[in-house]
C-alpha cells in the first residue's frame, strides 16, 4: 500500500517535470520584464508594444531627480524598417546618436536582447537630456532604415506608476548617474559604476533566467522520457509470483536510480553559465576607468567560456569589479611614471578564468607597481593592528593579509573608485561565502595578481576513459597530448627509468597499473597503449591496458575523508552506475 502511494506521487512529479521541460524547449529565452499585458494608458500603447512598461523604483528615482534638475525625460520609441537586416547594428547606431545628447536610463527590450536581435522591429528607451525633443526627432529620423520615431515627454506617461519589481537603490548611485558627464549610460553600465559603495545589498544583475544550450535541454528531455519508460514498466509489474515481482521491482528501481542521478546531473549542468556573462562588461568598464584616471590600460581576458553555477556568477561580479578597479587605480602607474620606469605606456590587466580540477580559478593580474609590503606593514602598525617587533617577523604573505582587514587602505587619496578601505575585506568575505579563497602574488615594480579559487558544486570536464586491469579510470583530456600504441620492446631503460622514444624525444613511462596498485588480471599484452600527458612543459607516458573512449564526465569529490589521496583527483559516476576514479595527472607525471 505504502509503495503504491509513493509511486503515485512519483508519477505525478514525472508528468509535471515533463511539462516543464517541454515548455522550456519550445519557448525562446524569456525577457525578464513583463511587457505584454500591462494596462494601456495611451493610444500608442496599443500600437507600439515596447512602449508599454512601468519604471521600477530606481528608474523612477532617476527620472524624478532629472526633473528636479530641470532636465527633460523622454520616452522614445523607434520603429525600424521591416526590410532592415542588421537590426542590432542599426540599433547600435541609433543608441550612439541618442547618447550624444542624452543618457539612457531604461531600454525595452533590454540592451542585451537588442544586441542579440531579440526583438521585432521596435524598441523603446527612456532617456534624460537637456535638449528638447526636436533634436532627437531630427537626429534619429535622419538615420537610415528608421521608419518612425515617437517621442513623449515624461509628464504624459509618468502616471503609470511604479512597477512591482522595483527595488530600493542607495541614493549614492543615482548621484553617480548624473555626475557622470560623458560616459554613456546603459543599464548594465550603471550597475557596474556602483564600485565600492560599501556593502552592496542590492542585486541589480538578478537576471532570473538562464540561457540554456539546446543540447542540454535535449539531454534533459531524453532523461525525462526514460523516467516515463521506467514508470510504465513499474506500472506493468504485476506478477503472481512474489519472487519474480520483487526481482522486477528491484531491477526497475536500480534503473530508476541511475536515471535520477543522471537527471540530477543534467539539471545541475543547466544551471551552469559561462563567466563570459560577467566578463563581457569589463572591457567597457576598464576603458571608462582609464579615461577617468588619465592612464592607458589594456584589459586582456581569457577563458570566458569557463562555466560556473548561476548563483556563483551572480555573486562574483562585484568582487571582480573591485579587484579590477584596484589594479587600475593603485596598481597601474601613470603614463609618465611608466615611461620613466621603462615600461610600455599601456598598463596591462589580465583577467583569466580556468578550471583546475574541482575548482574554477579567476585571476586578476596587472603589470603595475606591485604591493609595497613595507607600506602595508607601516600602516598596520599605525593603525595599531600589530606591534612593531612582531610585525618585523612577519612573512610577506602575512603582511599582505592585512590588506583584507576591514577599513585598511594604504592609499593616500581616497578616490571615487577605491582607496576607501572598504573594498578588499568585502571581496574576501564574498569569496569565502562562496566557499572560495583569495590569494595574492605580488612583486614590487613588476605587478600584482589576485587569485580567486572557487570550488565547483559541479565540475564537468572532457576525459579519456581507460581500462587498467579490470578497473576503469578517467584521465582529463586537457592534460592529454596524444595517444600511441607501442610494443613492449619499445620500452627502454635509461638510468633506471623506463622510457620510450617519441619522435626522437625521450618520454618517461609511468606504469599506471603499478602506481595505482591495480590487481593483475593476468593478461599478457602484446600491444600497449600509452597516453602521453603534459605537465607544464614536460611529457610523460601513462601506460594503460586499453582505451574506452572520450566522454564528458562530472567530477565528484571523494569526500572529506579521502581527499588527501595524492594520485586521485576525484571520482565520476559512469553511465552504468559504476564509479571510475579520475587520475591526478600532475602528481603522477614525472
Amino acid at each position, binding site marked *: 500500500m505504502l509503495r503504491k502511494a509513493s509511486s503515485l506521487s512519483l508519477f505525478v512529479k514525472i508528468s509535471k517535470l515533463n511539462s516543464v521541460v517541454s515548455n522550456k524547449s519550445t519557448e525562446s529565452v524569456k525577457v525578464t520584464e513583463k511587457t505584454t499585458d500591462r494596462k494601456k494608458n495611451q493610444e500608442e500603447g496599443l500600437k507600439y508594444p515596447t512602449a508599454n512598461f512601468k519604471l521600477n523604483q530606481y528608474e523612477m528615482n532617476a527620472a524624478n531627480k532629472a526633473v528636479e534638475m530641470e532636465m527633460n525625460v523622454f520616452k522614445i520609441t523607434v520603429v525600424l524598417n521591416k526590410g532592415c537586416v542588421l537590426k542590432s547594428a542599426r540599433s547600435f547606431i541609433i543608441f550612439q546618436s541618442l547618447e550624444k545628447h542624452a543618457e539612457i536610463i531604461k531600454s525595452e527590450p533590454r540592451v542585451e536582447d537588442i544586441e542579440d536581435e531579440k526583438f521585432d522591429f521596435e524598441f523603446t528607451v527612456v532617456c534624460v537630456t537637456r535638449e528638447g525633443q526636436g533634436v532627437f526627432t531630427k537626429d534619429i529620423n535622419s538615420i537610415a532604415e528608421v521608419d518612425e520615431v515617437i517621442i513623449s515627454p515624461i509628464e504624459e506617461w509618468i502616471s503609470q506608476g511604479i512597477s512591482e519589481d522595483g527595488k530600493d537603490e542607495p541614493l549614492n548611485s543615482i548621484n553617480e548617474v548624473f555626475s557622470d558627464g560623458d560616459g554613456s549610460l546603459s543599464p548594465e553600465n550603471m550597475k557596474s559604476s556602483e564600485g565600492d559603495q560599501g556593502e552592496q545589498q542590492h542585486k541589480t544583475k538578478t537576471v532570473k533566467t538562464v540561457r540554456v544550450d539546446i543540447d542540454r535541454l535535449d539531454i534533459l528531455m531524453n532523461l525525462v522520457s526514460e523516467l516515463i519508460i521506467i514508470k510504465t514498466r513499474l506500472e506493468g509489474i504485476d506478477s503472481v509470483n512474489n519472487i519474480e515481482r520483487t526481482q522486477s521491482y528491484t531491477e526497475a528501481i536500480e534503473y530508476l*536510480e541511475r536515471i*535520477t*542521478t543522471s537527471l*540530477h*546531473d543534467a539539471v545541475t549542468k543547466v544551471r551552469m553559465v559561462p563567466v563570459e556573462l560577467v566578463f563581457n562588461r569589463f572591457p567597457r568598464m576598464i576603458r571608462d576607468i582609464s579615461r577617468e584616471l588619465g592612464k592607458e590600460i589594456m584589459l586582456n581576458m581569457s577563458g570566458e567560456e569557463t562555466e560556473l553555477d548561476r548563483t556563483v556568477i551572480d555573486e562574483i561580479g562585484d568582487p571582480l569589479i573591485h579587484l579590477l578597479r584596484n589594479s587600475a587605480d593603485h596598481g597601474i602607474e601613470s603614463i609618465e611614471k611608466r615611461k620613466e620606469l621603462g615600461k610600455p605606456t599601456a598598463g596591462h590587466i589580465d583577467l583569466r578564468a580556468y578550471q583546475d580540477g574541482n575548482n574554477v580559478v579567476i585571476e586578476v593580474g596587472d603589470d603595475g607597481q606591485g604591493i609595497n609590503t613595507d607600506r602595508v606593514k607601516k600602516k598596520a602598525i599605525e593603525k595599531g593592528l600589530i606591534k612593531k617587533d612582531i610585525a618585523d617577523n612577519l612573512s610577506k604573505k602575512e603582511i599582505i593579509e592585512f590588506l583584507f582587514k576591514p577599513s585598511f587602505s594604504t592609499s593616500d587619496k581616497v578616490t571615487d573608485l577605491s582607496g576607501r578601505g572598504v573594498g578588499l575585506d568585502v571581496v574576501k568575505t564574498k569569496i569565502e561565502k562562496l566557499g572560495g579563497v583569495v590569494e595574492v602574488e605580488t612583486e614590487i615594480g613588476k605587478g600584482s595578481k589576485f587569485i580567486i579559487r572557487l570550488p565547483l558544486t559541479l565540475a564537468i570536464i572532457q576525459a579519456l576513459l581507460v581500462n587498467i586491469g579490470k*578497473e576503469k579510470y578517467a584521465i582529463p583530456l586537457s592534460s592529454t597530448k596524444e595517444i600511441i600504441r607501442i610494443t613492449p620492446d619499445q620500452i627502454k631503460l635509461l638510468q633506471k627509468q623506463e622510457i620510450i622514444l617519441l619522435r626522437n624525444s625521450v618520454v618517461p613511462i609511468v606504469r599506471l597499473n603499478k*602506481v*595505482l*596498485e*591495480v590487481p593483475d588480471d593476468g593478461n599478457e599484452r602484446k600491444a600497449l597503449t600509452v597516453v602521453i600527458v603534459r605537465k607544464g612543459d614536460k611529457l610523460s607516458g601513462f601506460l594503460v591496458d586499453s582505451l574506452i573512449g572520450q566522454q564528458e564526465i562530472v567530477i*565528484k*569529490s*571523494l*569526500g*572529506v*575523508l*579521502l581527499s*588527501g*589521496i*595524492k*594520485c*586521485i583527483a576525484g*571520482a565520476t*559516476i559512469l553511465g552504468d*552506475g*559504476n*564509479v*571510475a*576514479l579520475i587520475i591526478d595527472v600532475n602528481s603522477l607525471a614525472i
Partner: protein
Amino acid sequence: MVEAKDAQGKQYVVFRLGNEDYALDIHSVTTIEKPMIVARVPRTPHFIKGVINLRGEIVPVMELSIRFNLTPAPESEETRIVIVKVGEASLGLVVDEVEDVLYLSKDSIENVSNYSTDLSMDFITGVGKVNDRVITILNLEKLIEFNESGS
C-alpha cells in the same frame, strides 16, 4: 522498543561483527544499505574497501572487521553497509548484520577500562548491557581518524 528520549539515555543502532555486538548512536546513522559494488581506491588504508555511488554521491566504505583487526566474514544475505555521518563526512561501514535499534540508559553503560578486548580502546566509548547482551558502543570520531599511511 520505542522509548522516549530522556536525559538518561540514548537510542543506538546495534549490529553484529563476527560474534560480537556493537552499537552506534542513532543520530549519526543516516541510512542502512544493502551491499553494492565498491570501487577500489588506491593508496588508501587497507580497511578502506573503496567508494560507492550512493544515489549520486561518492561515499567511502570502511571494512569494520579489518579496522578492528578481525577476520572479515564472507558476504551473506544479512551483510549491510551502515551509512554514518560525522560532521561533514559521510562514511559507509560494512557490518555482518544489523540487528536492532535499542535504547540504552546511561546506567546500563559501563566504562571501558573494566574490560579488555582485541579492539584498540580508542574506538570504544563504553559497553552496554541489555538483558544478557553485551554491546560495545563505538566512538565514531576515532574511527574516522586515519591518514593515508593507514594507522
